[in-house]
């Protein structure tokens, strides 16, 4: 190659000497980026659910909320580290003068194994996974616990409507799902045709509605309010229309609602038994 075609290439910037101040070194700068991104991630973890999740009306819904917060907070420092190193590398260690030479970039310094870093990485990852596993198993166990005075509700999905039946109230069947507060509700879910997904959003539970199969899932209401039941499985032409309205009401209001919606065959004691949580 003739000397006039030789293109000057920048040598990699020399790393600051070890005795340079920590925050002047790449590791220090990456640490600052990581710290800032972690703080942002943790703040997102605490505040984003207020905007992304609905107001939960059940114990299980609150557990979903708490799980979203926990996992986001746990993931924040990990994601911040990955993105922090990535962004810093892209900016500080990019190849300068790209396109000005046919010469390949110079090799970087050789990297050797780092036992301490490997152990730290494995331990931190292991702890995070174990925490998530224990948390998940505990939540799952609480959702499957049996409650003696639970309210049974039969849920039937059909293209493209939900219907709800109350076996303890003379099989009163309705299009809206009204539930008493402070009560464990056991949903027996099935389908008349194809697979649907029973998803009362604000109750924080979800299960498939399969034809010829009854699947059980439960939720314990703990807050008054309205909620929406949606279908979570793409079930056909009017899947997007397949929703129902619901509400968690006081036990007294629930008793009134039962009477008002045709539970005329019920005796007063029947209504009291179905609507009472004690």
């Amino acid at each position: 190659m003739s000397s006039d075609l030789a293109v000057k290439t920048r040598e990699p910037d020399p790393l600051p000497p070890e005795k340079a101040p920590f925050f002047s070194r790449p590791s220090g700068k990456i640490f600052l980026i990581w710290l800032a991104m972690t703080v942002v991630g943790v703040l997102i973890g605490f505040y984003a659910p207020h905007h992304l999740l609905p107001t939960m009306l059940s114990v299980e819904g609150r557990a979903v909320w708490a799980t979203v917060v926990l996992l986001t907070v746990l993931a924040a420092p990990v994601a911040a580290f990955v993105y922090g190193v990535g962004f810093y590398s892209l900016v500080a260690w990019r190849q300068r003068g790209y396109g000005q030479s046919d010469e390949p970039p110079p090799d970087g310094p050789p990297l050797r194994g780092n036992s301490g870093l490997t152990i730290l990485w494995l331990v931190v990852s292991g702890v995070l996974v174990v925490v998530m596993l224990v948390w998940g198993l505990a939540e799952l166990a609480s959702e499957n616990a049996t409650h003696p005075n639970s309210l049974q509700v039969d849920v039937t999905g059909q293209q493209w409507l939900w219907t709800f039946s109350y076996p303890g109230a003379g099989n009163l069947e309705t299009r809206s799902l009204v539930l008493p507060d402070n009560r464990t509700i056991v949903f027996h879910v099935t389908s008349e045709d194809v697979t649907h997904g029973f998803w009362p959003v604000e109750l924080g539970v979800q299960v498939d509605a399969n034809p010829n199969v009854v699947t059980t899932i439960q939720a314990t209401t703990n807050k008054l309010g309205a909620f929406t039941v949606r279908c979570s499985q793409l079930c056909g032409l009017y899947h997007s229309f397949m929703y129902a309205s619901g509400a968690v009401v006081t036990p007294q209001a629930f008793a009134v609602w039962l009477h008002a919606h045709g539970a005329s065959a019920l005796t007063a004691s029947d209504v009291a038994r179905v609507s009472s949580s004690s």
Partner: protein
Amino acid sequence: MSEKPGRERKPKALGIILTFVAVAIGVAVVAILFHAQTYTSPVGTQVAKSVGTVTVNGQTLQHVTLAFNTYPDASGSVDGQAIHPGGNPSWPSYGPTNQFQVPAHALVTVTMRQYDSGGSLNNPWFATVRGTVGSVARINGRLVHAVNPNNVGHTFTVRGAPGTDPGFFVNVPLPAVPGNNQSDNGQYETVIFSFVSGSQGVYGWNCEYPCGTSVAGFGGPMSAFGYMSGFLHVV
């Protein structure tokens, strides 16, 4: 003198831009086709006919009427109007259209002729008249609250989409005409009912009798737009 690499990259950049443009055009075409498929009917929209005002529960409402039928197959025509132009001739169908337009908060009186045979509903809950004035329908001149769930030809079942009246719901079961096959023998059941329309928006209606094919009778005409389903446009 060698050419600058920057110039060599131009064709590559042009290719990327063209790819993005092609993808954007593709997405737009699919969206337009989807929208057209969703909200058009082979024979347009039937706009409800105004017939004056009426008092319902102490409220004076505009009174409008709609008239449509259900047929055992989509091949024929009624009064010179094709039931389902270009449709599958062997599928049962509503006709002459599946798109209806009514004013908001008006009394809508529907007159239907049900020409089809039928059978048992998957869910007997749909055998009850729901959401109409008085929760009744007039079938062949007789007021009824419900029909035999094992002798239903079709149902006219309307519900709102998210964003419309969440409580709006109309279900009218249409009794089957005698016969065990889906051939038009000329017999029909006359069904008349009235309901008060909800607020503005698009409401979906469909049949809840499994008159289709394949999965639980909900394939074919039950899963293809325009036969056993449609929209009620409340304006």
